[in-house]
């Protein structure tokens, strides 16, 4: 973390309090925070993304289009290169039997590209995330709003704002790093 910035974290046990916190930050024109939740909630998506769908879909489309192209070119070029096999009097480049290969490749490449898109847009692997985000409570039952690099001059305003939203705790600096005794 840049030494000129500060970490701030609010932990919530209630979803509506978390949403209130996010809403107030947005209304105060404060950005640069991460929301954490133990499950996907459409309320969080709605408030953070305002209905914008994930860009993973473009990866899916690219993969599927690439797949259908490969699914045609692989058998077509193979048969054109070695044109000796002509079973059942079918043409060398026979579109109907190749449709099965095209279909399978569309699914295969579409799914693999979707996985790549998921990794890219979600920032996975996330081993290098800031330590304040590595809070085991966030996979258990708590929600969180975390600033990993807030400007020091904003920290007091953000802390005060978050404290008014029903957070269980609001911590700053190294106190945001939560380490539980192992279960």
């Amino acid at each position, binding site marked *: 973390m840049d030494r000129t910035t500060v970490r701030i974290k609010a932990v919530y046990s209630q979803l509506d309090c978390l949403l*209130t916190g996010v809403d107030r930050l947005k209304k105060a024109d404060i950005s640069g925070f*991460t929301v*954490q939740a133990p*499950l996907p909630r459409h309320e969080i998506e709605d408030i953070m993304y305002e209905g914008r769908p994930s860009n993973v879909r473009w990866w899916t489309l690219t993969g599927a289009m690439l797949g259908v192209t490969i699914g045609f070119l692989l058998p077509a070029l193979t048969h054109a290169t070695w044109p000796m096999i002509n079973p059942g009097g079918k043409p060398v480049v026979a579109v109907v039997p*190749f449709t099965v290969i095209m279909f399978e490749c569309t699914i295969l490449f579409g799914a693999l590209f979707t996985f790549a898109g998921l*990794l890219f847009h979600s920032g996975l692997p996330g081993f290098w995330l800031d330590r304040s985000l590595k809070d085991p409570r966030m*996979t258990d039952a708590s929600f969180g709003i975390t600033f990993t690099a807030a400007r020091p001059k904003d920290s007091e305003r953000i802390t005060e704002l978050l404290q008014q939203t029903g957070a269980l705790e609001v911590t700053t600096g190294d106190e945001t790093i939560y380490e539980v005794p192992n279960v």
Partner: protein
Amino acid sequence: MALIEVIDQNDPGKPNRPATYQESNRDIIRVLLNPTLLHSAAVLIAVVAMAIGGWAWYQQITWGMGVAGITHPTMWGVYIVTFVFWIGIGHAGTLISAILFLVRSRWRTGVYRASEAMTVFAVMTALLFPVLHLGRCWQAYWFFPYPNQRQLWMNFKSPLMWDVFAISTYFTVSAVFFYVGLLPDIAVFRDHSRGLVKRVYGLLCLGWRGTHKQWHAYMGAYGFFAAFAAPLVLSVHSVVSWDFAMAPTAGWHSTIFPPYFVAGAIFSGCAMVISLLLPMTLLFKWDKYVNTWHFENLAKMCLLTSGILTYAYATEYFVGWYSQNPYEQSIFFWRADPGADYGWAFWLMVFCNCIAPLAWYNKWMRTHPAPLFIIAAIVNVGMWMERFNIVVSSIAHNFDPATWWTYYPSLVEWGILVGSAGWFSFWFLLFAKTFPAVAITEIKEMVAPPVKGSLEA
């Protein structure tokens, strides 16, 4: 028994739902903490079964393919029958995880993770069979079409080549879909473990932290995976059926095969889910998450697909009779002749797949563990017999009477069959003990979110 209890039919999941997020975490994590004697015994049985399979394979490698019962004209025997059986078993997993996700079916939540695991392990088992059937397994690299220095002249117009693409795609997509669903749940396991185990779970979940970016991309991707996997379920067993239906062999060459195979695959898969989850539910005390509601729905799925199969069997005979094709009529009437070589196999199949499941029309029979388990086991036997009937009888009784031959599996082939069941069970048991076999995240979605009641946003 805790598994069976009176449930509210208006909201069947309700009585068994956990009250809080912590409770669902705690219940599923408990699996890690309680190694039981029963589980260890089950693993031991699976290992013994694998050892039997290993012994059989060793015999085959040492003495050659002659120790297997397959010979001309029945060159496809137990290995292909079992291969198709395991591919079919996988289908219910994808159906439950993908198709039921797309139609927002609520009962999938408790059972889909175990079903997905079953899919992946069943396809892993099926993938052994091309190598086993090859005989000279050390030359398995000849399966790969490229590079072509071996002058393979691979034929993309052949259903066998389509099958390679269909099954490898199915395995890859199922495995990725399965892994993506596991990511947030492995993160829960990581945060409740320590030491080396924590590091391993940490690596496997790719450092998942439940940030809004992660959930947004996850939900976007998950829908696409489901949308890809749904047509894949229908296509894979259609392509497997074309391995047979595209050949001009009487008894195989039928346009009814793709829907007939897909229905059969889902039928056997749902029965296998019942067979696996019933003991697991009792063993790991998952009754809060997997209960009568789920098993009853699985039994109903079996009833539906059993009806489709029965209709398909009848249609095959009608088409055989109506076609007036002597070869077609010959094979179908011979198959059903109780005095013929495989008459017993045909009637066993009819009993297991068409008659025994009818018991599930009775509510008591589909809501109590003993009848559920017994009928599901009968269905599994029946579906193996169905593939045996299709694969073996058609080629044992082909166009040329001079080549007719009665094939019975050898001890080595039975050994390989037992070994494959051991291999499948071993992976499933291991998975159930080390990973969340009930989807924690989706269970949490069924819990009412904690709220204070002061929502401004």
